[in-house]
């Protein structure tokens, strides 16, 4: 675990890499009062993605999604919500990326097809090119979801596009900008919005493996309300059973996320509460290997 001193040193180093002192200008202003001119802008771009993370962001409760994109930040562009399209939309994106429209954070959902740039095009230009150009002007980036962080399912074994996450994509190009990783397939809306609030109000949150410690510090298994069942060896034997789901393949012991205490969909439920084994969707290696199935049912005769 990172102590406060180490964190402050890291935070200072990260802030220095912004090219500003302490925190971005608009952030400092936003701390005092929500001023529309000063609220941080988000340019939200999608690569090899399913839009599931965007849809999850719309499931946020407090603050509401609308409050998040008007009070705490401004969603300057998002393909799902922007009124404008076509050339006018490209013009908006291009002006931000050229550094002509003020400071902004880049929000990225989806993986980058490293070996097949044609596999993701926005307005005649490969997705990766936007990311490279934005690296020169953005304050920092938030990688939203499994695909943007580590490649996700598009990067699973046998894939044809050479999909990678944002940090790896930047790393290969010697780009060393702040990238905050929010894992999950999809992300929980709180993980993203509360990170953005932290960026807006205070600065970079404590990170572990580039991910906010607040949400990803402990394992699902440690926090699981069925941990007692595990200790008492009360195991579900088949799908639909109650009890600890470990023998069915539950990946809670390998997955860092706070689902067991946070729950999903406004606290309605979460996977294990509905007797569904954790499939490790917040792990960097989620769904990566063909010979590592999600579930272990009865031993088969082979």
């Amino acid at each position: 675990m990172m102590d406060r001193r180490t964190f402050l040193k890291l935070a200072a180093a990260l802030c220095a890499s912004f090219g500003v002192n302490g925190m971005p200008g608009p952030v400092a202003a936003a701390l005092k009062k929500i001023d529309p001119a000063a609220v941080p802008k988000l340019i939200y771009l999608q690569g090899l993605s399913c839009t599931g993370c965007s849809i999850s962001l719309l499931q946020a409760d407090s603050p509401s999604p609308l409050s998040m994109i008007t009070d705490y930040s401004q969603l300057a562009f998002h393909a799902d919500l922007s009124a404008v399209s076509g050339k006018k939309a490209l013009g908006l994106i291009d002006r931000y990326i050229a550094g002509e429209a003020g400071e902004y954070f880049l929000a990225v959902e989806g993986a980058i097809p490293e070996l097949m740039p044609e596999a993701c095009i926005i307005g005649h230009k490969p997705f990766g090119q936007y990311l490279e150009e934005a690296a020169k002007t953005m304050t920092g980036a938030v990688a939203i979801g499994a695909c943007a962080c580590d490649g996700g399912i598009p990067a699973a074994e046998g894939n044809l596009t050479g999909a990678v996450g944002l940090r790896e994509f930047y790393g290969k190009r010697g780009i060393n900008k702040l990238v905050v990783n929010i894992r999950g397939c999809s992300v929980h809306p709180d993980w993203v919005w509360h990170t953005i609030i932290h960026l807006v109000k205070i600065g970079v949150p404590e990170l572990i493996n580039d991910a906010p410690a607040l949400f990803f510090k402990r394992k699902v298994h440690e926090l699981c309300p069925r941990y007692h069942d595990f200790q008492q060896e009360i195991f579900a034997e088949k799908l639909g059973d109650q009890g600890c789901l470990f023998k069915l393949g539950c990946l809670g012991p390998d997955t860092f996320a706070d689902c067991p205490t946070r729950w999903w969909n406004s606290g309605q439920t979460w996977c294990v509460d509905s007797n569904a084994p954790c499939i490790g969707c917040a792990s960097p290696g989620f769904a990566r290997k063909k010979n590592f199935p999600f579930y272990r049912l009865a031993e088969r005769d082979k």
Partner: protein
Amino acid sequence: MKVDLGPVTRIEGHLNVKTTIENDQIVDAQCMGEMFRGFEVILRGRDPLDAQQITQRICGVCPYAHAIASSYAQENAYGLQVPANGRIMHNLIQGANHLYDYLLHFYQLSALDFVDVTAILKYTGKDADLRKIKEWVQAELASQKAFPGAPFLPRLNGDYLMDDELNIGALKHYVEAMEVQKKANRAAAIFGGKFPHSTAIFPGGCTQAARMDLIASYQSFISETKEFIHSRYIPDIVAVAENFPEYWQIGASKGGFLSYGLLPLSAERNGSRVLAPGVLQGGKVKPVDFGLITQDVGHAKYSSPSGLKIAESSLTPDPGKKGAYTWTKAPRYDGRVMEVGPAARILVDYHLGGNKTVKSLVDTYAAMFGITADNLNSVLGRHLCRAVNAVVIADFLLEESERIDPGGKTMADIVVPATAEGYGVTEASRGALLHYIRIADYKIAAYECVVPTTWNASPRDDKGQPGAMESALVGTKVADLQDQIEAVRIIHSFDPCIACSVH
């Protein structure tokens, strides 16, 4: 002149539409799906039970539809007897997902095609939400920033609604819909485990228990959603239709209609569904035969053979292929172009006379607007059909949830065979969805998905027939040659999803 309308926004994913304009009219259109991941290849060699998880990630807007189609395909392959509770839970999850998707589509994705957001500046009432929006827009416009009012401004040039009361009311409902869609998703998550990307859906049922407290919560969320459908959604669609009546004539696709039918009423594989399946061509409905579906790739970026049947499908990407302009394949039914989606579901069922509510709603609205059922093949028709779907589904879900046997079994016992194949079909909110699985040595040997927007946004086939959406755009008059809001309205009426169409 040729104009790229892409990136088309307020849809899912990466779509460009290239239109050719002569004398202010679209004379040609090409739909270009611009994002490829290769799911079928990723699935090969994996454990078959991974499929309903992996395929949900094709689309985070309608993941439950993929989970259901994959579960049906696996149930078919494994020969599973699904307990009644399991089948009912599948329906409860999928139906709730439809309701959220219709509301999201009309308010968040389509409303800004018609509604004048700047009307909020004239608001003088006391509603807290609207006052807040007004103050926000005022502050934005007064700021010196580059793009005030984003993401709601800038926008395309167009003939927006002139009635301020309607505009302001629609904005209020835009905000309310954002809250209501969450409730429909909470309902689905009760049995699905979470939304998006359910973990509790399996072939054979659901892992969630059949508990009375869960049923009661579910019914409460669906009732609230139903109330919004009747008090807001339908009146808003009627208002748009009254103010833009020309859109009953704009955006007709030029092929047939295909629906696989939605929400099975019994565990039998070919038993009846709430909305009946069929292929509608020339006013006649025939049963669906999967053997007649083929996929052409003459204009799609693949070097694998063209015209293959589902079980023979193949996928070799060729990004630089000459003459290819999209990653979307061109599925055809018996060689014919098909539109799928809400209008297909309603028209097929209406012509079969299956669901009495469908018949009566279509007849009522046809009389109200002075149209015939044929006019449902239009921009307004697709919007109205979504609302009809929503009414029928919401009522069904409340009845269906009463049929759960509390405490009863919700899952079949799964035994994956060494060798098997199976088909699963359902209706995603965007239309006909088919999954095919073939298993060899306990692993997935082949998997194929033919997805709604694969049909609707398909390119020309090898005979040169344009896809449904391409054909719907041709003939449309446009006022602003660059922005072409008329074309954008047609595209939005199909609710295209490119993550689905290419996958």
